[in-house]
């Protein structure tokens, strides 16, 4: 019996075998979707770039060299140099760390927050549900970017505050999903069984309700990544996010704005990085949705 047969066995003997088999089936389905594979590759590229930035980048991201100001792209400087003679390619490479940190932190803050709020609202129902979802709906009915801008204005510019502001605007969507998922199975027999043997509310929510919400959460979070990247870059562009000399992509575009008519590469190059990474998350999210959440099915 080959490993593949063992994985695809219709009647797995152990829980591990069942889980591994399911993971195997999902991976193969995902890998059959060319766009999803492209997305996966781009996201892996982002991870690798962030991890190995010092070895990939030919120069430091902050070292100035005023003799090499505003040089066009060449073999030596693949993306040219900026107004302080810094190698744009190196800055874009190091910028991947900032982007990765922002999306990771926003996801780590907002997804669990939304998940718990939504699950609690859906599980208890009644006035708890009404209050929590009322708050969620107010946040959902407001434009995200504007809300994030106002929060950063109050908190003060800076990358930490930008992350907090984006997280504040991102959680309601997760709360909605978690609530909808919870409603579909809160009266199911296995939940009632746990309740009958004396499982507390928190045990039911954390051990039995939340795990069932994770797959739709992962899909949604991946699809949201592009939006988070764009908002973070927008805040950086307006000077409200990462501060110089940090090589944040949005802030780099903002610096290049002055030179856009003559030295187009200063503003343009970081933009390509943003588009590539956002597209990667979009592709991957689309593919993951088809695998994990077939009932939503974007592709009809």
């Amino acid at each position, binding site marked *: 019996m080959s490993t593949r047969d063992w994985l695809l066995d219709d009647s797995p003997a152990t829980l591990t075998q069942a889980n591994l088999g399911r993971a195997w089936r999902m991976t193969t389905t995902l890998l059959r979707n060319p766009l999803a594979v492209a997305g996966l590759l781009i996201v892996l590229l982002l991870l690798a770039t962030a991890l190995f930035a010092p070895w990939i980048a030919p120069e430091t991201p902050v070292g100035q060299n005023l003799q090499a100001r505003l040089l066009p792209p060449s073999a030596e400087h693949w993306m040219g140099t900026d107004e302080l003679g810094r190698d744009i390619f190196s800055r874009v490479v190091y910028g991947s760390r900032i982007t990765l940190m922002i999306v990771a932190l926003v996801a780590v803050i907002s997804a669990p927050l939304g998940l718990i709020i939504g699950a609690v609202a859906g599980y208890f129902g009644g006035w708890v549900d009404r209050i929590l979802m009322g708050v969620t709906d107010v946040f959902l009915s407001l434009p995200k970017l504007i809300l994030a801008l106002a929060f950063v204005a109050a*908190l003060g510019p800076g990358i930490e505050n930008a992350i907090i502001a984006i997280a504040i605007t991102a959680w309601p969507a997760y709360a909605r999903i978690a609530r909808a998922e919870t409603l579909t199975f809160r009266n199911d027999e296995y939940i009632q069984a746990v309740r009958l043997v004396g499982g507390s509310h928190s045990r039911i929510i954390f051990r039995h309700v939340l795990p069932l919400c994770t797959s739709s959460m992962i899909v949604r979070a991946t699809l949201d990544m592009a939006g988070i990247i764009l908002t973070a870059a927008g805040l950086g562009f307006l000077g409200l996010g990462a501060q110089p000399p940090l090589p944040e992509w949005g802030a780099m575009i903002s610096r290049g704005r002055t030179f856009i008519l003559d030295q187009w590469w200063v503003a343009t190059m970081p*933009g390509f990085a943003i588009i590539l990474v956002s597209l990667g998350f979009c592709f991957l999210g689309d593919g993951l949705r088809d695998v994990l959440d077939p009932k939503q099915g974007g592709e009809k």
Partner: protein
Amino acid sequence: MAIDATMAVRAGRSAKGVGGFVVVTALTFLGLLAITFFIGRVVPIDPVLSVVGDRATQAQYDAARVAMGLDRPLIIQFFDYVWSVMQGDLGTSISTNRPVADDLLRVFPATLEMATLGILIGVALGVPAGVWAATRRGEWVDQVMRVFALLGYSVPAFWLGLVGLAFFYAGLGWVAGPGRLDIFYEGLVPARTNVMLIDAALAGDWDVFRNALAHLVLPASILGFFSLAFIARMTRSFMLDQLGQEFITTARVKGVPEWRVIWVHGFKPIRVPLITVIGLSYAALLEGSVMIETVFSWPGIGNYLTTALLNADMNAVLGATLVIGSVFILINKISDVLYRVLDPRSR
């Protein structure tokens, strides 16, 4: 008699619907006010300090604190705030020294002009593109449309604006540069509506009109691209739903010409959900215009907001947030109601 009874019931039902709508909308507005209040009074560590500056004496500080009403309980402050907003008082901007409400009234038409042209472009191109992609499902047209739509989610608006300026203005010279008018056209037409195209047309000054259009077309097209991506994607998915149904097959079997199958049998039922989608993307354009206006120095509400942000002009920031948020909520609710009125199934 029977007719009267049904009509009364129907009227009652719609009154109830309208009543519910008003209550929900009012609550959402109250939520919006709570958020802007929270941002303005609670998030900053010391709102007084941000007004008087750190060199003020203790007496000045205390006086400002009382003048701002910050010595009273938070809930009273909130009701005060709601009351003054309802009277149209949004405070005074520290950078323009004018009431924020007046400033916003002056700049809003510029945003409205750009967003409206943007949504017209988005609908005019997005709906046919979506229908086309749906009828050519899986072919290259469909694939191109899919990538195009995903690009709409991945391209930063401000970046596209800059590249557009570099390419179409500096490179090809097809459009005019940033701003609403060239400097020598400014002040030629009386500002009646503050919508430049309408003002110029009212004054009959077609040179100004052409110049205003040349300035407007690039930012509006870029906004239009984002709504196009969304509208085309949604149209395609609605259309696929319809084209898979049996009455479409029946129509084809009966020998109805293909264009009629698509545009009459297929398209008619999706008009109602499309209205909601268009409403949503119109609201989203008001949001997107913040970035575009900054890039194009377009004197609208987005530019006003970002300028205020950089000057730490909190009254102006919150006022602009409130207005954009309100318009956003209103458009959402209206398209919700339209959906309910137009689609008998949802009643």
